[in-house]
């Protein structure tokens, strides 16, 4: 195996034509030949330049407009203008809560952070929580209550509901149906149950494409009832992940990532855990695994059975492995069970949402057989208030609708017309319902089919509650009144009751007063009586902490139903390799890592976020292995075009499955198994906002209820069309100068210096400028490549904190994305089974900064604390600094990317950071606004800034605690200790830039039996 790291498949192929293309800096300027060699073109260029210079000079002659100061009439006690406040609230996704602390400037929420007191967050966040602010202010949100397209007042809706409900009174509600997503809110569940008591024949259906249907059914299969498994990664020495991305997706992932990363510190080699991942599409979890086995999703179950049998699961029968599986997995079925058995009680097997219930049941059985239950796995009551088989529930609803028995359908959240499996015919069945009501953030595909469209209040505008992955309940409290008159599900349900005007605040408070948690200090009040003052005290405490104490579920015992293990699920046919017209492959459906099932499709931050591994923005694609791509495409011509800031132009492929077709661009991914493709859901929207519509293709067009997560025998055929994909993996290449260092644990403990092999450290005297002494603070950062899971939370966190604009697909295609921190994916080894590493790259704040010496106007200069300051109002846009930056971390505002006009978007900006205009260079400043704020506070107390007092936005967002910032002059600071450690290395240190940001090398805990 070669020891070189690579980033793109073209690089690995070492095609000289590719190298030449990459080195063209501005291919878009050079359509045919060199513009500078053509005298006519050059003259035109000079003329244009002269004119624009003159105009640019004139635009500076503006006077600052007179501004108003508008003070309060009666100032609220807590608000001090200029000082932000933080409130605890909760974001629920797929029914499961993540606790947040949200920063508010004079009543405007501007930034969401994790709540360290909440178990599902543990202080970290995911990209969705970080991007929630933009969804709140999204000007495309549904803004008015409409009935068949006409704007109506809320009272008209209440009237319509009263009439509908009265008509149902005599029928015992037989025509009422409620469709929700997964519900963990105790209040909402109580409201629905109350409704079902009043109307015994009404029905409650649930459908949530982001929920964990297979995990739910797997638990029922294994234990005969719905239970939730809680995983304790802090206690696990060996983890086997079966097609799951537990580090970045699903309930409690932020907390899981923190616990997992804490067990991967090579400085404590004996505590280092080992992760095996069996998966199809490469995920962040698989990339962090010490051993990863890429395999088609349908082949995972037989392999798991073999492992289960060797682990000693009673009743598990190992089927003979197909030759395709055996080729990669022969060593695995021996080595992995052995390792698991060697760590009885401290191992952990976890299955993913894309795998059938049988695999989940096998995982439960293995944990039982390994004695992990009670130590690394704990079972509790389900977090969902009413767990059901959601697909069946949706099917029942469609059947009822088709039968014409549904008179009133309330769709509370979700977009079932878009997310329902294609074969159910949900949309056409919906047409047969007499009165259809849809509550949603956007006027989307489902809204278009409903009579009433109610704008939903964003969670930052709502009173509600939700449970975390371990059952911990917390209150969702609003930070701002609904911007667009949105309503909550509580209020819509109340409209069906006898007190239709009740606010969700009163509904939630009443629920918790009537259902006090264990150990509450107040007595349950009599209905109709005022709430006791003790309740108010407890309520204030819950709101302040962001959690309700003693609400986490207690562990419970479950008994394994051994019969569940035996039956192998059907559909293990191996796809035939070729047939007329196309290639037969297997297709796996996954929620998109950035926009999930499409619910975040109109969020520009998430759309422009390079997806983990693929670094694709603004689109989905048909992800396949390089070999499969070649087979489908029938050629191996490089799809990449256009230089350093280039793009991927890919073939459009048609997928045909059971008479349904969809077309998408094909995208080869290293580490993807052969003979199968992965497609992400959530794209190809036809309604629901300006950004949502038009991006990508709708993969659910071929997703049927019988093959929800993977479909066999899909025909893939080239169409001959080409399509441009905005992929940032080709941008900011570092010319292969060993940016990532990785060793095995054995190598590291034998010789910790091994990561520094071949290092060239230039002498400190090799500078024209005299040495500068940093006497006060000396800021620095250490980024642990070993801990980074590539989840992107830091990228969105930085974007929210620093008012970074969204530029759009067309600009990303030109390499003009503006993220101040990027995450590079590096591979090592063969393209079929590479090792994968993530490297977040912000500005390095070099002490010998190459950018500073080339700036003709002094717009980037060094501060006395070692920050590489960027002075926007001095910058004239020569871009010399960017040219001279070896790390390629400077970003230029080629156009006026920031939206200066939309009032709603102005509210969400961080007032402590300048909003940059066109023609200005910008970059990471270590969140200098946070540094200054902390310094000012410390100086007011006549003390130094304490270690850990300044947390940069990326560090705060990171669930894996991979980024540490602090004062290098304080030898006891965390960052100083990390930088003094053996794993510390400087990126491109041989250039004598002396970066303040350094990296900690990755150390893989390899199982010697599996080799490397």
């Amino acid at each position, binding site marked *: 195996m070669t020891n070189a790291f690579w980033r793109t498949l073209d690089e690995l192929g070492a095609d000289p034509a590719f190298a030449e293309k990459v080195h063209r800096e501005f291919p878009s300027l050079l359509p045919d030949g060199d513009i500078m060699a053509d005298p006519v073109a050059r003259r035109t260029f000079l003329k244009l330049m002269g004119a624009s210079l003159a105009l640019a000079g004139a635009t500076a002659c503006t006077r600052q407009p007179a*501004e108003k100061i508008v*003070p309060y009439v009666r100032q609220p006690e807590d608000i*001090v203008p200029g000082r932000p406040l933080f409130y605890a609230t909760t974001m629920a996704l797929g029914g499961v809560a993540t606790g947040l602390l949200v920063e508010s400037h004079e009543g405007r929420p501007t930034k969401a952070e994790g709540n360290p007191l909440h178990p599902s967050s543990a202080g970290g966040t995911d990209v969705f929580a970080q991007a929630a602010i933009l969804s709140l202010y999204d000007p495309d949100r549904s803004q008015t209550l409409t009935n068949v397209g006409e704007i109506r007042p809320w009272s008209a809706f209440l009237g319509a509901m009263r009439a509908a409900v009265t008509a149902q009174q005599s029928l015992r509600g037989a025509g009422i149906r409620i469709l929700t997503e997964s519900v963990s809110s105790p209040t909402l569940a109580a409201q629905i149950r109350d409704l079902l008591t009043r109307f015994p024949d009404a029905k409650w259906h649930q459908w949530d494409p982001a929920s964990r249907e297979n995990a739910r059914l797997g638990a029922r299969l294994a234990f005969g009832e719905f239970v939730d498994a809680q995983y304790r990664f802090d206690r696990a020495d060996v983890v086997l992940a079966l097609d799951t991305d537990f580090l970045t997706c699903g309930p409690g992932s932020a907390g899981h990532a923190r616990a997992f990363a804490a067990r991967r510190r090579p400085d404590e080699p004996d505590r280092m855990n080992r992760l095996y991942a069996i998966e199809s599409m490469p995920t962040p979890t698989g990339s962090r695994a010490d051993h990863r086995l890429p395999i088609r999703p349908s082949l995972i179950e037989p392999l798991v059975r073999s492992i289960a049998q060797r682990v000693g699961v009673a009743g598990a029968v190992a089927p003979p492995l197909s030759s395709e599986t055996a080729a990669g997995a022969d060593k695995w079925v021996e080595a992995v069970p052995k390792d698991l058995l060697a760590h009885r009680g401290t191992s952990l097997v976890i299955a993913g949402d894309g795998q059938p219930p049988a695999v989940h049941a096998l995982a439960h059985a293995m944990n039982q057989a390994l004695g992990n239950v009670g130590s690394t796995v704990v079972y509790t009551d389900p977090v969902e208030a009413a767990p059901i088989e959601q697909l069946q529930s949706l099917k029942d609803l469609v059947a009822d609708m088709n039968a014409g028995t549904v008179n009133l359908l309330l769709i509370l959240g979700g977009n079932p017309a878009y997310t329902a499996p294609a074969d159910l015919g949900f949309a056409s069945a919906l047409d047969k319902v007499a009165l259809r009501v849809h509550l949603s953030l956007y006027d989307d595909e489902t809204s278009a089919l409903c009579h009433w469209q109610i704008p939903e209040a964003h969670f930052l505008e709502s009173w509600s509650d939700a449970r975390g992955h371990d059952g911990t309940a917390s209150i969702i409290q609003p930070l701002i009144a609904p911007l667009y008159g949105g309503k909550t599900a509580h209020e819509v349900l109340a409209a069906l009751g006898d007190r239709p005007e009740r606010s969700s605040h009163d509904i939630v408070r009443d629920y918790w007063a009537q259902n006090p948690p264990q150990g509450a200090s107040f007595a349950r009040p009599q209905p109709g009586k005022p709430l006791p003052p003790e309740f108010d005290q407890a309520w204030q405490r819950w709101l302040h902490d962001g959690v309700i104490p003693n609400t986490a579920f207690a562990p419970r015992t479950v008994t394994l139903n051994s019969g569940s293990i035996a039956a192998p699920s059907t559909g293990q046919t191996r796809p035939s390799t070729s047939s007329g017209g196309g290639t037969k492959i297997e297709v796996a459906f996954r929620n998109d890592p950035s926009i999930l099932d499409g619910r975040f499709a109109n969020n520009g931050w998430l759309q422009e976020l390079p997806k983990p591994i693929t670094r694709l923005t603004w689109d989905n694609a048909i992800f396949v292995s390089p070999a499969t791509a070649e087979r489908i495409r029938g050629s191996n011509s490089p799809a990449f075009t256009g230089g350093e800031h280039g793009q991927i132009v890919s073939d459009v492929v048609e997928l045909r499955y059971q008479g349904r077709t969809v077309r998408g661009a094909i995208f080869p991914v290293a580490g993807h198994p052969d003979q199968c493709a992965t497609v992400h859901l959530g794209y190809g929207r036809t309604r629901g906002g300006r950004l949502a519509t038009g991006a990508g293709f709708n993969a659910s067009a071929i997703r049927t209820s019988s093959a929800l997560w993977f479909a066999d025998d899909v025909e893939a055929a080239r169409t001959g069309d080409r399509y441009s994909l905005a992929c940032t993996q080709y941008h900011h290449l570092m010319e292969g100068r060993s940016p990532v260092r990785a060793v095995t644990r054995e190598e590291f403990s034998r010789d910790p210096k091994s990561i520094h092999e071949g290092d060239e450290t230039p002498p400190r005297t090799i500078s024209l400028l005299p040495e500068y002494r940093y006497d006060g603070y000396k800021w620095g950062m250490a980024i642990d490549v070993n801990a980074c899971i590539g989840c992107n939370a830091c990228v969105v966190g930085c974007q929210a904190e620093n008012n970074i604009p969204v530029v759009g697909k067309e600009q990303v295609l030109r390499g003009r994305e503006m993220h101040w921190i990027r995450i590079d994916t590096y591979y090592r080894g063969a393209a079929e089974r590479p090792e994968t590493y993530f490297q977040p790259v912000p500005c390095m704040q070099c002490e010998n900064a190459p950018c500073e010496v080339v700036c003709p106007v002094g717009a980037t200069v060094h501060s006395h604390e070692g920050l590489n300051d960027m002075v*926007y109002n001095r910058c004239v846009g020569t871009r010399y600094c960017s040219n001279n930056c070896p790390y390629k971390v400077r970003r230029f505002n080629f156009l006026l990317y920031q939206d200066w006009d939309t009032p709603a978007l102005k509210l969400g900006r961080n007032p402590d950071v300048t909003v940059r205009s066109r023609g200005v260079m910008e970059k990471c400043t270590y969140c200098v606004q946070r540094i200054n704020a902390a310094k*000012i506070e410390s100086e007011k107390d006549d003390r130094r800034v304490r270690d850990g007092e300044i947390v940069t936005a990326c560090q705060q967002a990171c669930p894996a605690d991979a980024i540490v910032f602090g004062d290098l002059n304080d030898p006891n600071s965390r960052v100083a200790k990390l930088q003094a450690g053996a794993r510390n290395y400087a990126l491109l240190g041989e250039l004598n830039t002396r970066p303040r940001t350094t990296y900690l090398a990755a150390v893989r805990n390899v199982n010697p039996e599996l080799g490397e």
Partner: protein
Amino acid sequence: MSQIFHRSANTLSRVSIFGAVFIIAGLLAVIVEVNRSPWVTDAHVAREQPIQFSHERHVAGNGIDCRYCHTAVESSSFAGVPPTKTCMNCHAQIFANSPFLEPVRASFRTGQSIEWTRVHDLPDFVYFNHSIHVRKGVGCTTCHGQVDRMPLMWQEASLQMEWCLDCHRNPERYVRPRDAVFRVDYAPPANQLELGRRLVADYQIQKLTSCSTCHR
């Protein structure tokens, strides 16, 4: 062929070449001075306000401390402009029927804020923090001038960067003891430099001139 130019053209050209140096220098000086003048900076230009509020009356006449109205000055970047409620604390009783104060009463009645015209307006890319300056011994009048003699508020200083830097480079010329920060009648003593150097040491005042101190 006769000469095109008369011989005097030689003198003219010499004078103009020599003069050009002065003309250009003069022009530059004019530009610099205009740029520093109140025409550009708006310094010493009293602003019209929706209410004829007089700092002279309230500060010199009634002896009200700055912090009675500008409550956040010690804790926040923004000193704070008082809510209507603060005005009404007194004016519910004093001059309760004065027609000048009708906008204040109207604001209190209707809940509509009074819209003051901003007098000290830094550019949006400058981040100034009142609380730390007050803590380090920069008096209110050092920047805002003798507000007790301003019937209508005006901007005393140019608020240009050279003015900021003058103090950031030489704080000892301007700082005063902490207990005198809010005194409007404070006058720098004759030994200001000596006192200033001592205070700079005592208050650990740093001479911060890095760009990111103010620009982010």
